């Protein structure tokens, strides 16, 4: 590594440097960015091939967690959560597959499959918001329901992903699936979607209302914000992103696997959102943080085995990171308050 590590800054920083640092900690993404860089550097130092040869694999996993993490971050900002995300992820490609099998061309089959995902999210939201079932429970129910339905309908057998799906989403044919550009493509989708939702969250009425609903539901109601609609719409966004991630994954792997959406995928995505700076209390969180958090989760999962750790060991630092991130979040909020 030619570039000096950021930790090598002299402690005798100037006043403006200190001010800049202070301004920097106001951004909730700062912490996770530093962590991501440190992890990348450490793995690169331990295994010279980490950044160079592992990038496509790493970015593909980042995309997988990230698309769901973006949805979970939005939903967690409203104060809700979706445990069924991984099952929506495995269900949606089957929607597309069956629609395609009955003769619909991909421009109809894939959007309709995503509408199906949206309907699942809408149902999650409706049960949570209108009937007052905590989202932890309503989406837990949905998790099992979808799992059983997909396994039954597919007879637990994977299906081949239609080739035109792959061409559309990954910019390559099936022979290239799993290599080079096709894996980067999923990550590029994630970056575009994360940037779009950052704008949605910070610069649209819907986004500000999303924060308001999670931060102070009563106030939002008093100001005439349609709180129920805002929450339900975020459940829908979550579901569509999870469904989209499932379709992308089915293109990358070339098969639609009923067991693809393992529940740890949902948990990794929630972990990514949390270590990215999104609070489970609602009101605060960032989409870009969720993206970088996904990179950290992917780095731990893919990177630790590369430097000689057992495959399962990655969950140890991940577990510590989740709790540490939450503590840091609470402390930083207090620190920011003191600065004003």
């Amino acid at each position, binding site marked *: 590594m030619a570039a000096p590590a950021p930790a090598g800054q002299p402690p005798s920083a100037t006043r403006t440097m200190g001010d800049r640092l202070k301004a920097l900690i106001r951004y909730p993404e700062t912490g996770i960015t530093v962590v991501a860089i440190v992890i990348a550097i450490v793995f690169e130092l331990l295994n010279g091939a980490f950044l160079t040869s592992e990038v496509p694999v790493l970015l593909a996993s980042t995309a997988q967690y990230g698309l769901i993490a973006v949805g979970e971050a939005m939903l967690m900002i409203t104060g809700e959560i979706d445990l069924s995300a991984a099952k929506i992820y495995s269900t949606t490609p089957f929607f597309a597959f069956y629609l395609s099998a009955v003769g619909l061309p991909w421009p109809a089959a894939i959007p309709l499959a995503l509408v199906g995902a949206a309907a699942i999210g809408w149902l999650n939201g409706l049960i949570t918001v209108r009937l007052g079932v905590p989202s932890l429970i309503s989406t837990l129910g949905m998790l099992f329901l979808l799992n059983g339905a997909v396994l039954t309908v597919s007879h637990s057998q994977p299906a081949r992903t239609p080739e035109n799906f792959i061409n559309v989403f990954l910019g390559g044919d099936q022979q290239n699936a799993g290599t080079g550009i096709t894996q980067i493509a999923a990550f590029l989708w994630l970056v575009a979607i994360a940037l779009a939702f950052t704008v949605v969250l910070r*610069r*649209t*009425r819907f986004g500000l209302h999303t924060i308001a609903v999670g*931060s102070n539901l*009563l*106030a*939002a109601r*008093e100001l005439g914000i349609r709180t129920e609609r805002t929450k339900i719409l975020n459940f829908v966004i979550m579901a569509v992103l999870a469904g989209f991630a499932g379709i992308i994954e089915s293109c990358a792997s070339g098969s639609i696997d009923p067991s693809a959406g393992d529940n740890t995928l949902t948990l990794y995505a929630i972990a990514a959102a949390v270590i990215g700076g999104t609070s489970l209390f609602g009101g605060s969180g960032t989409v870009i943080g969720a993206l970088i958090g996904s990179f950290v989760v992917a780095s731990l999962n893919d990177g630790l085995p590369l430097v000689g750790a057992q495959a399962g060991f990655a969950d140890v630092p991940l577990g510590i990171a989740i709790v540490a991130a939450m503590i840091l979040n609470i402390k930083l909020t207090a620190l920011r308050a003191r600065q*004003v």
Partner: protein
Amino acid sequence: MSVDADVPKLVDAPELLRAEGVTKNYGPSIVLRGLDLRVARGEVVALVGDNGAGKSTFIKILSGFHQPTAGTLYWEGREFSLASPTQARARGIETVYQDLALVNDLSVAQNMFLGREPIKRVLGFPLTDARAMRIKTREFLDQVGIRLNSVDSLVRDLSGGQRQSIAVARAMQSQPKLLIMDEPLAALGVREGAHVLKLVQEIRRRRDVSIILIVHNYSQIFEVCDRINFLFLGEIVLDVATSEITEEELIRMVKSGLGAKPAAASNAAGI
């Protein structure tokens, strides 16, 4: 308050709001039983009463949250009803709730426009106009004499008085005809409370906005109100101009004339 002399007298001010026989039941419990109230344009009316007298229920009706079980509301002489908070705001009724309805995780400027953000189209997408929100927020705060370091500060980081002032500035921003303030002093210290009363007096001096001030303790607000209405068990039992009565007389009246009832209410509430 010494500034009282500058406040123009209300002479033949037209009626803005009248409530006649407003009743509200929640299931078997009757919260309002035939409440009558009149507010003239530019008038500041204090609505006082013990906990459970029905103050909150009445303002929830005026701000469109609840509909009365019976009774009639008149706005500028014409009968009207409110189906939602949005309708109340559209009519020019702004409410500063006791909880202030501020969102801690949004900035001062974002709170100022929450629920009616100005929109600017960028490449066809309707984005909120952050710059306009900042500039206008600074204007509004200047108008009501509030100084803040930055309108980008999160509301979480402000003091109680600053928060109350921001809530009032927000309510005034749409140039309402009626401003309802629910217990604006309840959570404030003496100095911060005085600042908020000054704000009310400032609005009153212009005589173009009517104010209903919900208070628990009327001695604090005697100076800024034109009339005091005493609400007891869902009815207005006393309606008196502050110019026709001194604070001491009012206290004596409440204790003697109305004495039995309010005392009973206080006991019932366990105070």
